[in-house]
């Protein structure tokens, strides 16, 4: 047992180092070439020392106003997605569950498609000129995600008890319905809106601003902060709801809290960066193979690795076709899917899952 503990400590130290390295990599790389020394200088002194040198001012702006908020947003969204994935898998007692099951992504996607395709027409209908502010998309995506989750939650709740099986099935139905309605909107869209929809559904951290960081933080941080307190209950819940109750876990409250945290965090993540797949599935899965399924270790580890991997994926996304950039969802899926398969094939222990 002490060996497992030592292994846990080693894994956490490794993850923290990996995260630190990736954060520095993310702040130090991009289409604009800035020497590492100057990046550090800018970060440590806020860019004050280089006043007078115009390239220094530009570099400071790139590091502080483009790369830093983008890195922080990636860190939060990645950590939020991975932790939410692990929470959902524990809650549904199914290692294949992912945050999309509570309907957030489906609802957010439909709301976003509505804004992209109908936004300006809706605005015209109420006699407002011009086009919707670009905050309309994240606000709509966030609200749409939460509203869908709330609807599913109501459908799955009978006499004060949430049936996770009903929620899962209703989630599939909701996703199908949202998919069909999004299809209708795709039909009604013009060429440009169609491309907007496609790009949005592939996710991107492009356009990350401090405002986005600040507005996403209150939604994503709660799940990260609460996580240490949920591990024990989730461990018990893995045995079954009745067993968890026998062990003194307030099961219904735990389910409600977990669903709420996941809906808010994933909703905010989708609102800020579009749909990013595979992080919520692959990260908890890989870590379970590395450090075991014990949630008190797994959940914080997911936060570290999820954040690190999404930031890394973003570095790849913005470097491979620089000065253009790939949608980040493409990178996470291209890397995530083979890794997932490799994990599945490499461990026969998973065969009976």
């Amino acid at each position, binding site marked *: 047992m002490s060996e497992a503990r030592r292994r846990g400590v080693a894994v956490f130290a490794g993850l923290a180092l990996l995260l630190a390295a990736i954060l520095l990599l993310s702040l130090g790389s*991009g*289409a*604009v070439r800035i020497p590492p020394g100057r990046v550090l200088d800018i970060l440590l002194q806020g860019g004050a020392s280089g006043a007078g040198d115009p390239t220094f001012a530009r570099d400071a702006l790139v590091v502080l106003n483009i790369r830093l908020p983008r890195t922080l947003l990636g860190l939060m969204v990645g950590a939020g997605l991975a932790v939410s994935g692990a929470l959902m898998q524990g809650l549904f007692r199914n290692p294949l569950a992912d945050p999309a099951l509570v309907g957030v992504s489906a609802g957010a996607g439909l709301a976003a498609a509505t804004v992209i395709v109908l936004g300006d027409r809706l605005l015209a209908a109420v006699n407002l000129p011009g086009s919707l502010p670009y905050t309309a998309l994240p606000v709509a995506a966030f609200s749409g995600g939460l509203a869908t989750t709330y609807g599913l939650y109501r459908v799955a709740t009978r006499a004060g008890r949430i049936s996770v099986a009903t929620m899962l099935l209703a989630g599939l139905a909701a996703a199908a319905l949202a998919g069909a309605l999004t299809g209708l909107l795709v039909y009604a869209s013009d060429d440009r809106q169609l491309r907007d929809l496609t790009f949005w559904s592939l996710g991107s951290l492009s356009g990350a601003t401090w405002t986005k960081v600040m507005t996403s933080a209150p939604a994503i941080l709660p799940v990260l902060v609460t996580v240490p307190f949920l591990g024990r209950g989730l461990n018990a819940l893995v045995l079954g709801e009745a067993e968890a109750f026998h062990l003194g876990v307030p099961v219904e409250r735990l389910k409600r809290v977990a669903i709420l945290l996941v809906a808010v965090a994933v909703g905010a993540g989708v609102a800020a960066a579009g749909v990013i797949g595979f992080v919520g599935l692959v990260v908890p899965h890989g870590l379970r193979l590395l450090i075991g399924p014990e949630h008190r270790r797994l959940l914080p580890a997911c936060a570290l690795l999820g954040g690190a991997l999404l930031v890394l994926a973003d570095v790849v996304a913005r470097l491979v076709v*620089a000065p253009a950039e790939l949608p980040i969802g493409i990178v996470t899926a291209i890397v995530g899917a083979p890794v997932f398969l490799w994990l599945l094939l490499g461990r026969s222990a998973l065969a009976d899952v």
Partner: protein
Amino acid sequence: MSAAASSPPLSRRAVLGTLLGFGFGFGLAADPARAAASAMRIASLGGAVTEILWRLGAGSRIAIVDTTSVYPAEVLREKPNAGYLRALSAEGLLSAGPDLVIAAEGAGPAAVLTQIREAGIPVVLVHEPPTVEGVLEKIRAVGHAAGLDAPAETLHRTVEAAFAALAGRRARIARPARALVVLSLANGRVMAGGRESTADGILALAGLRNAAEGLTGFKPITDEAIVAAAPETVVVMSNEGHALSPDTVFAPGTALSQTPAAAKRSLVAMDGLALLGFGPRTPETAEALMRAVYPDLTGE
């Protein structure tokens, strides 16, 4: 005025944004006109914008383009590419070191344009209605933004004259033929250009009647609707010289094979950007289309 110096629409957005609880900060927009005179490195985003800059002799000042800027190919092949017009990267654009961004309306994401402005680089957005006036105003707007008002006036006059000549020829068409613009023909499904599309605009200029008048925008059209539309000619896109052949388009058994166009094997293939881009080449393109469909008009 079609050059929208960013402030008015954006301050309105800022107000709406604040109402929604997202107080995005604006107000760093520099005066584009003042920056323009010295702009030596231009980020040119949008196929027509780039084409106009090139026609104004500013091709060498273009520092970076987007994926829709494909003409003239030999000039643009060497330029860095910032990706799709609506999925730009702030750092990617900045890495080209531009001192001015001229972008077709709709470039984005908006937050990226904000970041560019925060870097002190003026961003000029150009409107793009698919009309004669739209093309002419676009020439002036791009020229003004780049500090090339005089060459822009010259180009404006040239293009205006070409449009006028085109209108003169168009007036001689007794009965406009019905034409169908086929954007793609995937797995037998036809994607056609309906009303309010750029295809509709170019057909009007070429003196043709859009057979797909029941559609709005680019949409898949059913087999029955194709037969009912009864186009007398079909226009397809060519891409770097490759285009659909009449044998493919009018393959036996397809809906298109049952149209008057099939009987005459009337198929026109035209470069996609030239056809739908609405830039300085539009009068020539419209004229070429007109000549292809009405060969008799050429005997002038």
